[in-house]
C-alpha cells in the first residue's frame, strides 16, 4: 500500500516553545545531578527496515528509527523524570516519492511524582487516560489523592491531531473525580471539552467503575454521555467471575448510539456524513467467554458475541482458542472463529495456528492466519498470511529479529513482505538497569 501525502495539524508555536523549554530545563537539571543510585538514564532504540511492494508495483524500503529516552532522579521527596520518544522514517527505495521522509514526536514530557499522595504533575506531549478522556495532548496533567479515599485529576492543553479532514480542536481540558476503597471498588465521574475558537466541538461526561466486592468477582465498565447531542454515546461493561485459579467466566455488554458516538471525528471515513456510518443506528453487543487453564502450560478459552442493530441485521462472532507451552521452550496456539453476519459478505471462518521455539539465545516463529469468506471480497473467497520470524538475543540488551510474510489477500495475488528489526536497550543507574 503506497503511503500517500499527509498533512499534520501543526502544534501552536507557543506550545512547542513551552514544551521545548521544559524539556531542555529538565535535561539540564538531570545532567547536573551527581551520579547516584537515585539517578537513572535509560533508552531504547529500534531500527526497522521494511521491504514490500506498493499498489503500483513499486518497491518500498522504508527505514525507521524509533528512539525512546527516559531520565529520572528520585533523590528528593519525589521523583522528577523526563520521557521522550519518537520515530523517523526515510524510504530507501522510491526516491521519487514526494514524502519519502516523515517522523513524529510521540511523547515528550517532564514529570514530577511525589512519594506521598500519588501526586503527579506532567508537562509536555503525553497520553492522558482519565475516565472519558483518552487523549494525546500537548499540555499539563495533574493528579492527586485527596482526603477520605477521593482522588482528582485534571488536564488542559492542545489536542495532538494528525491527518485531519475536520478540525480536531485547539484546546482540550477535562478531569476526573473518583472515590475508592482499594480492595472493593473505585468509581469515578469525568468530563472533557474540546474547543475551536472558544466554541465546544466535544463535550463528554461519564461514569467509570471497577468493582471487586469479593476476590473472585471483578466488574469494570464505563458510560459516556454526549452533552452536545444530548445522548448516551456508549455503555460498556464487563463482569468476570473466577471461582478457581483455573477457571474464569466473563460476560460483557456494549451499547453504542452512532449519532452520539461518532458526532465529532477528524476523518471522513468515520464521519456521519459519508455513508459508512448510519446516524440513526444503535448497536448492542452481548457476549461472554470462558477461560480454563488445564495446567500452567495449557490454556483453553471459548467466546461468543452477539451484535444487534436497529437498522442493519444482526451478527454473531464466536470461537475457541487453545494455547500450550513446554519446558523445552516451545509455545503454540490454535484458534477458530466464525463471523456470522446477515449477508454472505458478512460471514467468514477464521483459522489461526502459530508456534514458536526457543533455541538458547535464538528463537523461531511460524504464524498461519486463514480466512474463508462465504461470499467474495473483491472476487476472492479465501485469504491467508503465512509469517516466519527468527530472532537472536546477542545480549540482554541487544536483539536482532527478522520476518518474512507471504500474503494472499483481496488486493494482492501474491504479496511478500519482509522486516528486519535491531533493538538495543541501554541505561545507567539502578532503575536504568
Amino acid at each position: 500500500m503506497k503511503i500517500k501525502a499527509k498533512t499534520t495539524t501543526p502544534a501552536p508555536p507557543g506550545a512547542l516553545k513551552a514544551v521545548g523549554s521544559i524539556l531542555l530545563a529538565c535535561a539540564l537539571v538531570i545532567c547536573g545531578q551527581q551520579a547516584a543510585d537515585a539517578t537513572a538514564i535509560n533508552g531504547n532504540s529500534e531500527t526497522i527496515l521494511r521491504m514490500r511492494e506498493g499498489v503500483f508495483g513499486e518497491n518500498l524500503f522504508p527505514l525507521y528509527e524509533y528512539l525512546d529516552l527516559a531520565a529520572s532522579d528520585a533523590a528528593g521527596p519525589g521523583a522528577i523524570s523526563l520521557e521522550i520518544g519518537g520515530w523517523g522514517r526515510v524510504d530507501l527505495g522510491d526516491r521519487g516519492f514526494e514524502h519519502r521522509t516523515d517522523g513524529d514526536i510521540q511523547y515528550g514530557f517532564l514529570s514530577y511524582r511525589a512519594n506521598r499522595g500519588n501526586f503527579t504533575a506532567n508537562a509536555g506531549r503525553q497520553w492522558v487516560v482519565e475516565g472519558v478522556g483518552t487523549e494525546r495532548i500537548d499540555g499539563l496533567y495533574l493528579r492527586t489523592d485527596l482526603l477520605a479515599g477521593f482522588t482528582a485529576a485534571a488536564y488542559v492543553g492542545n489536542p495532538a491531531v494528525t491527518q485531519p479532514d475536520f478540525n480536531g480542536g485547539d484546546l482540550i481540558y477535562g478531569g476526573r473525580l473518583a472515590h475508592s476503597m482499594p480492595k472493593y471498588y473505585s468509581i469515578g465521574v469525568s468530563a472533557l471539552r474540546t474547543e475551536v475558537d472558544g466554541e465546544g466541538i466535544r463535550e463528554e461526561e461519564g461514569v467509570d467503575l471497577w468493582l471487586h466486592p469479593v476476590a473472585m468477582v471483578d466488574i469494570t465498565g464505563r458510560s459516556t454521555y454526549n452533552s452536545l447531542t444530548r445522548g448516551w454515546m456508549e455503555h460498556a461493561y464487563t463482569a468476570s467471575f473466577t471461582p478457581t485459579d483455573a477457571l474464569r467466566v466473563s460476560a460483557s455488554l456494549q451499547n453504542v448510539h452512532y449519532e452520539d458516538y461518532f458526532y465529532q471525528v477528524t476523518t471522513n471515513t468515520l464521519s456521519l456524513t459519508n455513508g459508512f456510518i448510519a446516524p440513526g443506528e444503535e448497536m448492542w453487543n452481548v457476549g461472554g467467554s470462558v477461560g480454563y487453564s488445564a495446567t500452567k502450560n495449557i490454556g483453553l478459552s471459548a467466546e461468543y458475541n452477539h451484535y444487534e442493530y436497529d437498522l442493519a441485521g444482526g451478527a454473531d462472532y464466536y470461537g475457541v482458542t487453545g494455547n500450550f507451552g513446554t519446558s523445552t521452550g516451545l509455545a503454540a496456539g490454535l484458534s477458530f472463529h466464525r463471523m456470522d453476519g446477515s449477508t454472505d459478505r458478512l460471514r467468514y471462518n477464521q483459522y489461526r495456528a502459530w508456534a514458536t521455539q526457543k533455541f538458547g539465545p535464538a528463537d523461531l516463529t511460524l504464524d498461519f492466519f486463514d480466512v474463508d469468506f462465504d461470499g467474495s471480497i473483491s472476487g476472492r473467497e479465501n485469504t491467508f498470511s503465512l509469517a516466519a520470524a527468527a530472532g537472536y538475543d546477542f545480549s540482554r540488551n541487544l536483539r536482532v529479529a527478522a520476518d518474512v510474510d507471504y500474503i494472499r489477500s483481496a488486493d494482492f495475488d501474491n504479496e511478500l513482505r519482509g522486516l528486519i528489526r535491531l533493538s538495543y536497550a541501554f541505561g545507567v543507574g539502578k532503575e536504568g538497569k
Partner: protein
Amino acid sequence: MKKTAYLMVMGIMLSFLYACANTNSIARVHPEEVKGLPRCAECHTDQWTALSHQTQDFYLKHKIYAAQQRDACNTCHKESFCVRCHAHKEEIKPSDRYKDRPELSLPHRGDYLSRHRVEGRINPASCLKCHGRQNNERCKTCHK
C-alpha cells in the same frame, strides 16, 4: 477578578485535601522484576489479582484499569510501552512489528485489510478507539 478568587479558593482547598490524604504513593518501579505476561495472583491477594495479563478478558478490560490506576501500570510499563499500540501517528501496525511475539493479543493480524470490510460494518465503534481522531493516514488512503 471573581474568576481568580474562585481559582485561588479551589487551589487552597485541594492543597488542604491533598495534605490530609497522607497516603503512600504506589511504587514507581515494581519491586520484583516481571517477565512475560504476569499472573499477578501468584503474589498478590488484593485487588491487583485482577490485573493478571493471561486471562482471556484482560485485553478487553485493561482500558478501565489504565483509566483508573495508571500508576499501577507505570510500575512496569513506561510511556514507550503504551505508545507502541496507542500512538496518534503510526505507520507500522503492532502485529507487523512484533511477528516474533505471536502470543500477544495484537489487533489486525493476518490480512486485516480484507477482513476490515466485514468487521468495520459489524462494529465500527471499535475502530474509533485508535482511528477517527488519530492514525487517520491509513483510512484516508482509500476512504477519501
